[in-house]
């Protein structure tokens, strides 16, 4: 078992083919999206490293080249999702450019642009080693190199220098800009694009200027015009297919369309999402697409109307816990600035984004803007509580607690109550009471208080409108509360104040007891579930404690540095992550016993920041005991690098598993797993070859289904052959004891024979034991006399 990286991010630029499909690199895959339905149509898999570039084959627009850090270039038919060719280059490739007439240009690791000759041989896997250097010292950013009109030249920018190389004349021209002028402009280049029809190069600069270069085949008499709209660095540039417009984008997340004829005229499409990292135009010029740093692709009609959005898991700062929306089972976390995203892990797409802050986000660095810091769902998912804050760095903190109610009609959350400055200081933790009778929220904050909020009908105003108000304010010796947690029935509330855990009755708000287990302040607090609900778990920097609340005493404790503790809501299991020498170890245990159910050392590198149990749609019936804890839920966790990981079991071998051929998963696991882990894994049965054959044979040549069915079932029984042998051996041993065992043995064999035959033809009517004996005797009897009789 291994955590597998979810390929949620469209990391690389998107490219159009016609207007129907959009291709984009995502991890080691190339995804093909439909531009009309936003659905992922195909996944081109095969690369073993990060895919770094995707580009349409200029000679055949149904094919696409992809390059990867694994040192191969692959040619695909993306309509059917078939791999056509593999060109092995040998070096990690960072970007790829093509030219109609000749070979492919790639920039390999040592920052060189080389022309790679792709040999035309029928084999699928070809070594492509014939290459010639074109430019050296180019930037690793794919946007800083572009092919010119008809592939006659290539333009590349690096630092403050623009280099243009003409292929025919084999001549290089270099143009440098001064570091700064009097006004302190930052002249460094950021990106480049070439006009498709004219000899015009557009370059983007760090200070937001765009320069249009002409006459660049002259050392001195070159000329450029400067346009300035972007207030920050130009992220990307792209000319439209006909060259009528120049598109540019940057941090402002505004798509700017410049008119090439009328340089002063420009059109804008604002509020597209995160910073624009790449723009591309469909070959017929009808569609533009913008890729954003927050893992989003917008598909825009050329009249600057947004036509489709492909939104992955929004990458950004994550302050909230990972949560599962009980209704949609979507993963909920920080999304766009000031939003919560609801991300369906099953469908791998964003369901919707809830605007919490409800203020325009300004795309500028260094501004202090409202951010969603905490969020919590009530048990049924009817209520959502959020905390937004501003001014964390400065002393004047502004925060507000918002409570959202789910509106069945509108199918979304609506704001019910806003409590500004709910606490004097930052709200650290909050949780809803799981009890069904009352809707209750507890917040703990740095102002040494915890507050209980209750939904109540306001008698003064309309009766129907229920709003939230503070019910109780609790504190303990002026200590700072850190965590709070309700017991599974909602009757007890545990609040940790530094080293002390206080238990409160949620009915009377009476301090029932305190638990203290020094040294060190309590980090995490968590009640056991289901049968273990009498246990309360707590962690400090050094220990993991388990208290029994019935006896109010420590049940057990173990010295370990737990950085994250979560309980599975559907089982008794509790997962603990512990950082150990740079790697995080995973432990699964039940509070009732201090022995872990499952341990995985070094589940990932770095510290695990967040984790969540996501309930499965259908519980699995895993035969492997080690993974039974994952039967009802999946575990997702986030590391420091904000890489979402999924702890996935190798699912039980079901016929569907074989039929659907989840070989990808197996392959991945093979690649990812170390030697030791490979041994752990349950090996899938070998019978899949027969199934494969079965599935690949055309239907009209296949025998009747009734015939096949039994064969298929037979093939499933193969796994039982080992077990089947065991009783046979037992029988053998027993036979030695008995005298007439030989006969028995034969009967057994016969029986088996019959059974195997049975699958091919009609089984003969079964005989009783006496009849069998009789039959055998008949067989053993010498019938030679009959022949003699016949011959005589």
């Amino acid at each position: 078992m291994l955590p597998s990286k979810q390929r949620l991010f469209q990391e690389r630029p998107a490219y159009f083919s016609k207007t129907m499909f959009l291709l984009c690199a995502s991890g080691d895959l190339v995804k093909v999206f439909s531009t009309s339905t936003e659905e992922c149509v195909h996944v081109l898999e095969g690369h073993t490293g990060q895919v770094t570039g995707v580009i349409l084959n200029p000679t055949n627009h149904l094919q696409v080249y992809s390059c990867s850090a694994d040192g191969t270039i692959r040619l695909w038919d993306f309509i059917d999702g078939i791999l056509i060719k593999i060109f092995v280059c040998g070096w990690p490739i960072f970007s790829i450019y093509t030219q109609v007439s000749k070979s492919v240009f790639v920039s390999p690791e040592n920052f060189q642009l080389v022309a790679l000759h792709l040999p035309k041989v029928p084999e699928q896997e070809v070594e492509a080693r014939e290459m010639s250097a074109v430019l050296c010292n180019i930037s690793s950013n794919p946007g800083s190199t572009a092919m010119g009109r008809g592939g006659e030249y290539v333009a590349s920018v690096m630092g403050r220098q623009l280099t243009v190389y003409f292929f025919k004349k084999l001549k290089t021209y270099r143009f440098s800009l001064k570091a700064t002028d009097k006004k302190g402009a930052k002249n460094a280049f950021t990106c480049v694009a070439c006009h498709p029809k004219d000899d015009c190069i557009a370059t983007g600069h760090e200070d937001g200027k765009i320069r249009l270069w002409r006459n660049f085949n002259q050392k001195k008499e070159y000329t450029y015009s400067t346009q300035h709209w972007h207030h920050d660095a130009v992220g990307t540039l792209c000319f439209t297919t006909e060259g009528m417009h120049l598109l540019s984008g940057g941090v402002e997340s505004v798509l700017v369309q410049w008119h090439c004829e009328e340089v002063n005229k420009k059109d804008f499409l604002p509020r597209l999402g995160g910073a624009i990292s790449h723009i591309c135009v469909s070959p017929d010029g009808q569609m533009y697409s913008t890729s954003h740093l927050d893992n989003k692709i917008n598909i825009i009609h050329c009249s600057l109307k947004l036509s489709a959005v492909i939104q992955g898991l929004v990458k950004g700062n994550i302050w909230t816990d990972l949560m599962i929306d009980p209704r949609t089972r979507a993963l909920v976390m920080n999304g766009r600035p000031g939003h919560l995203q609801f991300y369906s892990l099953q469908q791998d797409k964003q369901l919707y984004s809830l605007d919490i802050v409800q203020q325009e986000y300004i795309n500028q660095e260094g501004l202090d803007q409202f951010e969603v810091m905490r969020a919590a769902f009530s048990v049924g998912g009817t209520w959502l509580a959020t905390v937004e804050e501003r001014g964390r760095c400065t002393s004047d903190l502004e925060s507000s607690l918002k409570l959202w109610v789910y509106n069945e009609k509108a199918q979304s959350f609506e704001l019910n109550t806003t409590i500004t400055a709910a606490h004097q200081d930052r709200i650290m933790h909050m949780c809803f009471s799981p009890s069904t009778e009352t809707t209750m929220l507890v917040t703990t904050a740095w102002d040494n208080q915890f507050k209980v909020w209750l939904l109540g009908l306001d008698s003064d105003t309309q009766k129907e409108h229920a709003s939230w108000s503070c019910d109780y304010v609790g504190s303990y010796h002026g200590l700072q509360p850190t965590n709070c947690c309700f017991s599974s029935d909602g009757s007890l509330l545990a609040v940790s104040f530094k080293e002390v855990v206080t238990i409160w009755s949620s009915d009377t708000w009476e301090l029932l007891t305190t638990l203290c287990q020094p040294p060190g302040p309590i980090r995490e607090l968590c009640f056991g579930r289901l049968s273990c609900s009498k246990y309360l778990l707590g962690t400090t920097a050094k220990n993991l404690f388990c208290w029994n609340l019935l006896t109010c005493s420590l049940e057990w404790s173990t010295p370990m540095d737990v950085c994250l503790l979560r309980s599975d809501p559907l089982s008794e299991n509790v997962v603990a992550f512990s950082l150990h020498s740079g790697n995080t170890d995973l432990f699964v245990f039940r509070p009732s016993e201090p022995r872990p159910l499952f341990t995985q050392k070094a589940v990932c590198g770095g510290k695990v920041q967040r984790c969540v149990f996501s309930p499965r749609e259908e519980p699995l019936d895993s035969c492997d005991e080690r993974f039974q804890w994952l039967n009802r839920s999946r575990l997702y966790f986030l590391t420091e690098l904000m890489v979402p990981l999924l702890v996935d079991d190798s699912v039980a071998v079901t016929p569907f598993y074989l039929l659907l051929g989840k070989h990808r998963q197996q392959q991945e696991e093979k690649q990812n797993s170390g030697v030791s882990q490979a041994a752990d894994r349950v090996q899938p049965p070998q019978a899949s070859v027969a199934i494969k054959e079965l599935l690949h044979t055309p239907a009209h040549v296949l025998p009747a289904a009734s015939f096949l069915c039994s064969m298929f079932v037979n093939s499933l029984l193969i796994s039982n052959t080992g077990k089947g042998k065991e009783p046979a051996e037992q029988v053998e041993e027993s036979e030695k004891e008995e005298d007439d065992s030989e006969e028995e043995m034969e009967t057994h064999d016969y029986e088996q024979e019959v059974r195997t035959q049975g699958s091919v033809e009609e089984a003969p009517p079964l005989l009783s034991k006496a009849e069998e004996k009789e039959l055998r005797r008949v067989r053993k009897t010498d019938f030679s006399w009959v022949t003699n009789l016949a011959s005589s």
Partner: protein
Amino acid sequence: MGEFNVHRVRFFDYMPSAIRALAFQPQRERIAVARTDGTVEIFNRADCFFQEKVIPGRQQAATEALAWVGDRLFSAGLNGEIIEYDLDNNKTKYTIDAYGGPIWSITSNKQGTHLAVGCEDGTVKLFEVHEDRIQFERNLAKQKGRIISLSWHPSGSKIVAGMMDVIHIFDTETGQSVQRLLVDRGVGTSRSQECVVWSVVYLSDGTIISGDSAGKVKMWDSRTGTLIKSHQVTKWDVLTLSVSQDETSLAVGTSEGHVVQFQFLSMVLGQEDKEWVRTRTFKNHTHDVRAVLEVNTAIVSGGMDTQFVVRPLLDKIDERGQASALRNIQFPHRRLVSCARKAGLLLFQYPGHLELWRYYSNGEEHICCSAVSPCGGWIAYSTVASFRLYRLHCENNNVSIIKVSKLPKVLSSANQICFSSDSSHLFVASTLLIFYLPSSSQGSGQAINLLAASEDGKWLASANSDHEVQIYNLNKMKPHCTVPVHSSGVSAMAIHPTTNNLFMVHADQQLTEYSVEKKQYTDWSRQVQRHGLHSLWLERDTPVTNVTFNPKNPAHIVLHDMYMFCIIDQTLPLPDQRSQFYNQLTLRSMPEKERKKHSHAFKMCKIFKELLFVELMEDQSLVVVERPLMDITAQLPAPVRQKKFAT
């Protein structure tokens, strides 16, 4: 170098007037500048854009346009007159009325045979250019509305006229309008306003380029009368256009104060099809750019903000140096202040009056030069038409002025006035050099623009705009010698009080010292020539306008330009190319012994604002007349409103 008491003078409210027109004479590389007060200035492009001549204007002169015909310069204005200038004597040669109401434009054909003027009454009048005069030839077909702009086709057979809402093409043979191009009005509120075609250019390939008040630069095909391309350059007006000699580059001046360059480029490299493409934008002006010129290696522009800006086109210049520097000429390259050293009086010369402590008024003609005698007892000034001399009595704050009558007839007007050091002599120069009190005169070809008298009253040096420097012996009343002609004009000169060496500063920042008695360059001057000057000195873009000497230390020479004043110590070694030029601060931090090794002849001082005049008085105090540019800008009318980012 010593310390001085500094009199900082800021009450000289010198206000230059706005530039209205520019014209380039390519053969002699002269640029004529017309200002709104009627002044015409001649700059020499070859000589670091040195202001060679100034022809003072008049009160009512509203010059609208300038035109060169060969070496002759013509101007026309809203007073309806055409003026030809006498460039030798720096004055108007003659004036003729065009009888067509106010004149908006004047232009000559390439052949130099005709002048065309565009008048308020809708006529284009052709004038034939004769040897000494111009002669009205005929009117082209009269149109409704005024003729704002004119341009000849290089062949001279056609002329294009920009009017209100329309452009007409005339055949000069028949005088008939052959094409009529309608110009779109602006959008929005400007829809109701007529579109003024401020400027037109007729190219040899038949393309007409127009700039109009809707902010558009339009390219037309004159044969078919169709619009080829339209560029929206600004939201405001496009005021002026200028095409380069080879017709590959076009400069456009706008109301926003921007100069936009268009270039005639092939869209696909190596192919013949070319298009006009907007390339660079220069933002050197704060106000309307009223005139722009494409001069081979630079774009020259001037406008309401009174600056004369030379923006070099770096792609046409091979090496870094004088020509590649951006020039911004704000102050005249001559003295407007004269100082009575002994009496401690300052005389400020305004266009309309002189100021000496108190306001002193003149008539309607502009003053071209003025001087106050060192003893403070005399003031002399000259307008284009007359010369005046006043006796001045200053007693206990009571100033009385008595006009000296009965001046000799020969003193009709002057270009330069100079008093001798003992105030016994007045030297007046036009083309003739006149010594007055006692009077005598001497002739020369070109107008004299600088005079310098020696302290002992024996010598007088004069420099004219042909770069010639003559030295006269005043005792013998005849020319003494001629200084070898330097390639660059003299911007300031003075005769040393003790050694009688003539110290000259040229427009290209070269320094020469000429021994009057020995009739040869001094050793120091030869050393400067051999050694070469520091590149930082040579790269300064304003000429030195005054030279004085320190009476206490004869080795010290005090110079100043617009941004700095400098004391040259002739006893110290010249700076090396590698050595630090502005080294005062470093020297101060060094111990006494080290200082000697590192110090060099040039002591620069930049602590003052823009300088008009620096003079060292008898009592070792320094008089500094400052005119901060901020004060000038503050007096300008408000520029067009522009949306600035983040405001």
